[in-house]
């Protein structure tokens, strides 16, 4: 009896140690200088998404007026209107501040869905093998056979444009990558002695999956979820640019679509075209820079010697 108690404490110790290693791993991410730079840029955008709408100097939808009551439109940057106004007389700087939220919603929600779906599919396929694995991997093959953006376009036409439908459309295909990589990792993990030991000690499949397999694949899940953030933000911008964005919201892609449709190019309105793209690029780049650090944790061969 006493021996049995002994075993359980050992197991729980080993578990907490494993989770501690993971936490350390996330600390290691920011030992990479590029990841640190990415982290700083990301914090700036997070602040923008959280507080942007509070500090925005103008209502993003309101038509700004001249003293005589006509629209204050197509104006270049001034001190009051930092990034000028568009053809509707709306303040572009304020619209830009509001746009950050959509980018974060699209990025984080997609990363979460893709991480959860992909990891569950990958672990199940890799651990159980056989016909379950076969079925899941054929689904992955199917998802790989579908052209990404065209599929998202078709799905949104069927489901109606809204930010959540955009997230669904992106996630519907993006889980394939996480699933494939997690599966191949689980196949090697499955053969480790610790798994045999756990099974010999009477651990159930669920327990093994949750306490031994999951902690080992978690860094990979995180890496591919980080990639998914970047993909989702770029895809949301692209879909919005094509006119498939949520018509009731403001996103950077929608600002660019308005600019393109309103001939901002021929009117020479650079203040309408350059800033939204810079925001998209900055946010996605910050995420990719952090992914550099994550990659070194996942794949130690990449670390500098």
């Amino acid at each position: 009896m006493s021996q049995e108690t002994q075993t359980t404490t050992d197991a729980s110790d080993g578990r907490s140690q494993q989770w501690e290693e993971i936490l350390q791993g996330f600390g290691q991410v920011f030992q990479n200088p590029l990841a640190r730079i990415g982290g700083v840029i990301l914090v700036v955008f997070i602040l923008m998404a959280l507080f942007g709408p509070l500090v925005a100097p103008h209502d993003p939808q309101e038509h700004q007026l001249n003293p005589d009551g006509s629209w204050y439109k197509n104006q270049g940057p001034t001190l009051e209107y930092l990034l000028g106004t568009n053809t509707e007389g709306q303040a572009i700087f304020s619209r830009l501040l509001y746009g950050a939220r959509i980018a974060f919603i699209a990025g984080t929600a997609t990363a979460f869905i893709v991480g959860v779906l992909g990891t569950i599919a990958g672990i199940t396929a890799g651990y159980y093998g056989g016909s379950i694995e076969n079925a899941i991997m054929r689904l992955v093959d199917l998802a790989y056979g579908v052209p990404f953006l065209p599929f998202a376009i078709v799905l949104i036409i069927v489901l109606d444009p809204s930010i959540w439908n955009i997230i669904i459309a992106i996630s519907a295909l993006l889980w394939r990558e996480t699933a494939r990589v997690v599966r191949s990792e689980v196949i090697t993990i499955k053969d480790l002695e610790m798994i045999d030991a756990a099974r010999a000690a009477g651990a159930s499949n669920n327990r093994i999956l949750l306490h031994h397999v999951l902690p080992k694949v978690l860094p990979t899940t995180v890496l591919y979820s980080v990639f998914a953030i970047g993909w989702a933000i770029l895809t949301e911008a692209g879909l919005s640019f094509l006119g498939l964005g949520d018509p009731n919201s403001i996103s950077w892609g929608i600002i660019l679509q308005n600019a393109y449709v309103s001939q901002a190019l021929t009117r020479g309105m650079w203040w309408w075209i350059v800033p939204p793209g810079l925001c998209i690029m900055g946010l996605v780049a910050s995420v990719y820079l952090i992914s550099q650090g994550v990659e070194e944790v996942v794949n130690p061969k990449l670390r500098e010697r």
Partner: protein
Amino acid sequence: MSFRRFVLRRAISTVLIYVVIATIVFFLFRQVGDPRALFMNPSMTPEQFAQIEEQFGLNDPLYVQYYKYLINLFTFEFGLSFYYREAAGPLLIERLQNSLLLTVPAIVLSYVFGTLGGVLLAWKRGESIERAGLVMALTFRSAPRFWVGLLLLFFLAGVYQLFPAGGMLDPGSTFESHYALLTNPDFFHHAILPVVSMSLYLMGLPMMLMRTSMLEVIGEDFVDICRAKGMRERDVMYKHVARNAILPVVTAFAVAIAFSFGGNVLVETVFSYPGVGRLMVNSVFRGDFPVAQFAFLLMAGMVLIMNFVADILYGYLDPRVTYD
């Protein structure tokens, strides 16, 4: 399993996956509304009505419609475009060729330069040149392709007037064949900006892949032996390490041709280029469902074929791969 059986099995599963995708599209598009609206519109003549009804079995039960749809798909009978009032098949094939004329050069350029750059990054590991290259690659991958296109249009076509503002040829000019296009300087003048905006983005992936793969090979023993022989570091990197590291890039290349069709929808839109992606988007908005539907299926077919080629190529190039 022998290589031949592996190829055969992959071929069969590719066709099966295509049928599944076609099935999903069949039912997805029927969510939009009446199937009649998918293939006919009021401006068609009664003869055309009758012909379309017959060809797609629109008066028949759903399973017959589905069966005829699959037959039509594999025989390239795509029905009539509402908008262009012509057969959708030849139209789509022509646009697909237009797209390839942009996509293939963009991918070749980006993979050549990306791979060479990736070798350099791994070679200069830890030096400032690596950091700079990494940041550059990541920045290009983070910039939306359509926005890069907008910037190029704004500055090079708008402000400096060096390039035309879009399209494939000057307004009013026509071309005999796609081969004739390749000898037409006007076409190149129109193609440069879209190709550049695609390449800058596409270059990032082979660069990062090559770098990662190189870093994994660089620690192996044979590299030390090369150095011990007194070989120049440049030769060690470009001749020995690169050759052992290039496999992931080769497979990514095959897949990239198919995958970039999706993203190039955006670039084609920005530059008003008559490619298959832009045709699909426009058709979706015009309610031109025969064209939208089959444009999607054509792109899906490209993706599947290239996935298949990549798998075979991988097995062929890497003798360590076992087929199971």
